[in-house]
């Protein structure tokens, strides 16, 4: 049987079959990978670029970034403060969930897309204080609707920047590549 099979595979039709099969595997795999890269489902299709276009500063909605470890997601009260003065809020489908949430007093459940593993202790304040702009890590928000992470936050990404920033300042370098700076 096996021998017959192998012989059959050797002839053109068999080769094609094998080709198709391999193709199938790869497409499945590719599909699989693509699944993992989908941005998650968000309660509101929040258009970042619109808000940036209105000239709203990042820190207005994410004030934590300048003060401590977490930038934070604004409370819906904050959204409402502006939006209840905007006529469009009443009509817009896009904003329906916000309206509904505020009226029903149910929190909006956002899914953060920029995240690091739990064994990484990240502190926004330090980075902002060091003069890093939000877009250096989070990308240009004037281009996106739902925030998407331009790059995976892995250790290589962090270290690259840390080493560049440190430059020749050895003391700084030591601090910035110290395992204990992020992992404890």
């Amino acid at each position, binding site marked *: 049987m096996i021998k017959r099979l192998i012989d059959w595979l050797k002839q053109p039709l068999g080769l094609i079959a094998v080709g198709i*099969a391999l193709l199938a595997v790869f*497409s499945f795999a590719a*599909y*699989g990978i693509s699944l993992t890269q989908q941005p998650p489902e968000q309660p509101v299709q929040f258009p970042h670029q619109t808000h940036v276009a209105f000239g709203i500063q990042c820190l207005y909605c994410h004030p934590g970034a300048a003060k401590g470890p977490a930038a934070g997601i604004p409370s819906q009260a904050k959204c409402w403060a502006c939006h209840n003065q905007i006529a469009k809020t009443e009509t817009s489908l896009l904003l329906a969930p916000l309206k509904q949430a505020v009226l029903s007093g149910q929190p909006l459940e956002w*899914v953060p897309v920029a*995240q690091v593993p739990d064994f990484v202790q990240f502190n926004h304040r330090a980075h902002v204080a060091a003069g890093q702009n939000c877009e250096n890590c989070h990308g240009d928000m004037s281009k996106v609707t739902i925030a998407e992470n331009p790059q995976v936050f892995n250790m290589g990404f962090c270290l690259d920047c840390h080493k560049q920033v440190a430059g020749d300042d050895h003391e700084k370098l030591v601090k910035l590549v110290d395992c204990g700076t992020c992992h404890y």
Partner: protein
Amino acid sequence: MTDKFSRRDFLKLAGVGTATTAILTGCGPASRYVKREPYMLMPEYTYNGQSTYYATTCRECAAGCGLVVRTSQGRAIKTEGNANHPLNLGKTCARGQATLHGLYNPDRVTDPLQRKRGNVSAAKMDWDAAIQTVADAFKQYKPNEAAFLMGTSSDHLFDLVTDLCSRTGLNLPVRFGALSMFESRATLAKAAENLFGEAGLPFFDVGGAQVVFSFGANFLETWLSPVSYTRGFAGLREGQTKKRGSFIQFESRMSSTAGKADEWIPLQPGSEALVALAIGRLALEMRGGPLPRAFADIDPRTAAARSGIELETLERYAEMFVNSTGVLAIPGGAALGQTNGLAVAEAVLTLNAVADNFGKQGGVFFSPTAPGQEKYQRSASVKEMQDLVQKMTDGEIKVLFVHGVNPLFELPASLEFKKALDGVEQVISFSTFPDETALESDFVFPDHHGLESWGYQRVSTGSNQSALSGSQPVVSPFYNTRSTADVLIAAAQLAGGDFAKALPFKDEVEFLQEKVAPLLNEVDGYFSAPDINTFMASFQQYGGWWKNSDSRVIPNTADVFNRNLKAAEAEFAGEGEFFFMPFVSPTLAEAGANKPWLQELPDPTTTVMWNTWVEINPETAHELGLEDDDVVKIISEAGELEVPVYRYPAIRPDTIAIPFGQGHTAYGRYAEQRGVNPADLLGRHFNEAGDLAFAGMKVRIEKTGKKQPLSRLESIMGVYGVGLGEEH
């Protein structure tokens, strides 16, 4: 052939493809996505990822230490000491640290329950029904048929209930706690009354002393106010201003307090009074001059003989009294928990008169009474509990409200509280946890955990300053629980009539405000405020209110010397050959057993975790043919229990000791069916002050042949040389 084969082939490979997908999905960020719930209305002062700190009061024991609780995103994540608080100055004990394991305990009572007594399963009710139940209980019984049994912490609730009862003629609330039982507070207070003419809790300035004689007082563990007394001990040793003070402990078993003493004197149990008086007399004789009545009829020789201490030793101690200043003698612990407990207390207090240290640095004071409190209110002695139990048994009590105490576990079994409960028609428990008593109640209306509640606690001892320690919720209630104060207020309103008049408050907070309002016009406070709201704000911010100045009271020692002190020796009940010495587990205390991390803390003396043991002198064990971990049966006149042996090198050969704290039959997964409860061995024997003579028993030991390995942190090889080979 062709297509058939290729299809199968294809499917196979497709399968491989999907498998790959499955694996890959696990690797991508998608696997890490979590939903996040932002504040709906973020408080002004919070920022995401930054902690907020709230001051409150620890409810793990009655001392009332100030806590500062670190909260993050609405969760309490760490308790720390309140540095401003006069009692603990920013420090905490292990139990204070582990209080979070109470707050987030997986076995809390989540809703008001109605149950058939003894049934673990119970029907949930809503709070309206619960309040209705309480209101009905108020109305349908005659005032003297209702009784409140309360714990030693959360004073505000006690005050509220007292008001309620006094204004409606209900029986006044009774407070009890195993700790106060083992502390023999009643005896201390009574002795003070006899000696100084007023009842009060003495304060011993260990920190200022030069030499400390402790007669059984385990003040570094659970006695009165361990945190502040530990600070005192540090002062005694460090001696910033003076040389390192020395410390002598008389105790038949080396407690972890005695472990820190320079000299540990395992005297004959029951002879403490003799020793104290003998030392006093010898000292006075050395000083010369007339011998006061108090020390007239004691013969040092007999004292030495009866106590098993050489006369020379007693004389050496007497010299200390004569030669060095700042000598302090502390009565406490097992020494008071004997039939002659009161005599011991008086003798030892009088010994301080020899040192003449009353009201001096390193001497004896009266603890300042808390703000707004005229005289020290002590919790009930076991004798008074016995009266209550009697009334219950006789059916005079129809409805019993239980809060903050677990009598089924904490009272000696010989009091038969269980039987007494059967005589009560309706038992309503306000317990936060499913403890034994809650299990034997008809209703459980769970109170908030201490960290979720309002309130205040009077600092009854341990602090130089008169202090009222304040509680506030540091997190919003985790379950469908409700503050008992609110429940009572609501029920009273519902019951109407006197009840409504008795508690004319909107809620607990309003009641609190009324209670602390008088402090507004108090002078010399840690803070002052123009109006009640500002005051309450600061009260919450600082975690209470206290005087700035030292407000300890100097006792009136006019006729201390001129009283007859009977040099009584203790009598011991039961015919066994061993003195039985129960002691409170320093880490678990009365209510710690349901907190996993307290269970995992090694006992300071034996390093045993998660269990109960009996301490037996190695010599005795050898004679009885007992090894470590052998399970023995301890039999007293009141009961018996089986417990594994710990061969303890620092205990009298004729004494055995068992820690109190384990042996729960309910109280959650970490406490249940773990260890034994020495209270089961205690008979009804009291001292003159009505405190239980818990150290006044004699017991027998029987082998069982069983073995139960104890979990020790220490290495039995490294510490005791067991199993290292013969030469060791």
